[in-house]
């Protein structure tokens, strides 16, 4: 469903993403982990067709996004980490607009919109301007917009930020059920607990390179011998010196 081949992104002399090869098959919830500045968001933005890669290719559902961006984007839903919503539109107007971008409207979309808003407790806010929404409500609205057109692939950057525990739980259930039905979700997250409990497979990126990828069991088997959890494994791969440095800073 998502296929990255030698995907590279350079900013001047700085290489943000360094020849990544990755394949996320249909029906999987894929976790993309890494420390700040590791290249997660840049990768996701290239998959979403917002950034053009310096080298390499991105295939969505078998379609090369560089060759046929319209067709690739039609089967994709993207949730950015810092989403923009038109402040002067109501929640419902915004969702109708997004549906329209994917060529959909009418009673089918109205019904689905109502279901999504109800799921995220936003139904009574549907006709209020977005400017009156809290941060969490905006996040829920954006998530709803990505599911509205039932895309085959969803790419989501830090979905849990700003969500209350109930919405967070609903979202995890939604992700699981959605992937069970053959769809693909690739999400970046810092919440290791979410990655551990929800994702079928994870990849850990650091310095623009994939350091490890596979199921949890595969990761423990390959690089996590003796590790007590994903956190320890993550730190081993991305910065095992952190704890020692912390002590040095505090003692300085």
């Amino acid at each position, binding site marked *: 469903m998502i296929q990255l081949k030698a995907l590279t992104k350079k900013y001047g002399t700085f290489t943000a993403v360094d020849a990544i090869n990755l394949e996320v098959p249909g029906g999987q919830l894929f976790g993309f982990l890494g420390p700040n500045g590791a290249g997660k968001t840049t990768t996701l933005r290239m998959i979403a067709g917002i950034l053009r890669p310096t080298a390499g290719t991105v295939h969505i559902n078998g379609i090369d996004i560089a060759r046929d961006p319209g067709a690739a984007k039609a089967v994709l839903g993207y949730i950015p980490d810092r989403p923009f919503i038109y402040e002067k539109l109501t929640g419902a107007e915004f969702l109708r*607009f997004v549906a329209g971008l994917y060529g959909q409207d009418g009673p089918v979309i109205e019904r689905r919109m109502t279901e999504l808003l*109800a799921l995220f407790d936003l139904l009574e806010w549907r006709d209020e301007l977005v400017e009156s929404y809290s941060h969490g409500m905006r996040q829920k609205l954006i998530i709803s917009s990505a599911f509205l057109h039932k895309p085959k692939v969803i790419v989501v950057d830090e979905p849990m930020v700003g969500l209350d525990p109930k919405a967070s739980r609903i979202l995890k259930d939604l992700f699981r059920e959605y992937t069970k039905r053959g769809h693909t979700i690739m999400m970046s997250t810092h919440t290791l607990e979410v990655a551990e409990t929800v994702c079928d497979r994870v990849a850990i990126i650091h310095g623009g390179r994939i350091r490890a990828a596979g199921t949890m069991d595969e990761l423990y088997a390959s690089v996590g011998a003796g590790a007590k959890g994903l956190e320890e494994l993550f730190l081993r791969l991305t910065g095992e010196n952190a704890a020692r440095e912390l002590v040095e800073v505090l003692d300085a």
Partner: protein
Amino acid sequence: MPEGTTGPRRTSAEVTGPRRSTGRQAVIALVEGNTGTDERTATPDPSYVHLLRPKILTAVSRASRTGDRRHGWRWTIVGAIGLLFWSFVLFVLTRVLTVFRNTPEIGALLAGKVLGLVFISFFMILLLSNIITALSTFFLAKDLELLVSAPVNWLTLYSAKLTESMLHSSWMVTLMAVPIFAAYGWVYGGGLLFPLVAVATFVPFLIIPAVCGAAIVILLVNAFPARRTKDILSVVAVLTAAGVVLLFRLLRPEKFARPEGLKSLVDFITLLRAPTAPYLPSEWVQRTIMSSLNGRTDWLPLYLLWTTAGAALVIGALLHQKLYTSGFTKAQESTQRWVRGRIVRRTGHFLLKPFGIVRRELVMKELRVFFRDTTQWSQLILLAVLVMVYVFNVKFLPLSGAGITFFLVNTIPFLNLGLAGFVLASIAARFIFPAVSMEGRTLWLLKSSPLPMRALLWSKFWIGTLPLLILAVGIVGVTDALLEVTQFIFLVSIFTITLLTFAVAGLALGLGAVFPQYDTENAAQIPTSFGGLVFMMISAGLVGGVVLLEARPVYGYLAAEAFGGVANPMDMYVGFGLAALLCLVCTFVPLTIAMRRLERLEL
């Protein structure tokens, strides 16, 4: 009400739609529902109107707010001022054109020449404005992430963004053009069909610079190194603006006002008949309009306007198709990752040492934020153009030759102070008025720190005032030198402009805190708010008041110099004293009010 929300919340009884169901069952119902169109095969293609829909809805939402009382009277004031402005332009132009119409031989030629000059200015303003707006609408707008990641056809995106850019850049020129067309149609008896001719001429005239602006931006974003594209573009735009102003000044429109410089009437008529800029659309507009008003419509220029607009659209669209994606990627990469600020930091630390750590860091922060904010760069471009036009116009004032007296030579520089005051006010509106509003998103940090609001306000005051003072004294000094004024007028100018600068800065900062726009992210939008309008009106009153108070002592001095005698010293003390007092009141009172507002502010 959920945390952080401001809107009204309706009761559950008002909620319509399905019974709210949450939890796993609801999720399963949702994902299993056959409400989606999962099996689509064709690529969706949202329409041009659909892309513009959020903008239209936003405009409707904003306009519908005028229904409430508070916004109602604000719009009434804005409308009344606009109407007053229209009436003024219509009145003056009608009088001038009536004189032209009654002048045989050269009257119609002069009317055409004036129209040509007006439209050449419009064309240059539109071109510059479209370059700046296109950068924002095509490459920096926040909705681009949503639109570019959606399956939107490139031509639809281009058309929608071009329309948006054109509307943003052209509305002010369009408003200006209405009374001008009306005056020409009225005086020359254009008839009922004239509005149609005017619209048919004006629409392609707006399209051409819009397409050119977008094309220039697309080329520049692609051509320059990815990093710092926005900054480089701003500098290029400054140079473009300077070139445009120079071109305009080389045309020397004032020579038409001083025909005695030419050898004969024949020479003057020849000058008038010569096209101002034959290859620019402004000349085609002028030829179409004037020929239509003279009853012998010349279709060729109208044909040129429409074919050029059509060709520009096709070329612009092709450029967009080829270069937009790579340009959009480069524009996102242009964020500066490393800032070399060691020398600036050391210099700042050295110069600001006496003010203590808090004030030093505040000042340094203000300077850094200002110079790294690209929205401020477009403001600087406009400022550069404004100052250049101002100095050039003063330089080319016809203040020598027959009939120009000592009195006139010195009165005009004094009245020039009023104009300089307005220039100052418009600069302060752009740079100082938004200062408090721009802290909106960081006020939590400032308010939760031990920083006294007084220190914040005063550091903002000095950061805004010092550059303004240097600029003000600079332009007044230069223009006084160009006009060769007496020493007395020179001193009066410098004294007045210094006090006016403090007063205008105090008013801008104070009123900016009284009418804050904490939610806005773009400083360019703040001066056009209601508070900005109030500031401009009070500033105009202040400038007018100061000029009026000083008029009597200045007149007394000039009369004494011109006709002999001694000026009354009491007039001097009272006039200049009251002017100084007015300026001091305008400096300190708004700042005191602002300080109280900020101290009481609850977030």
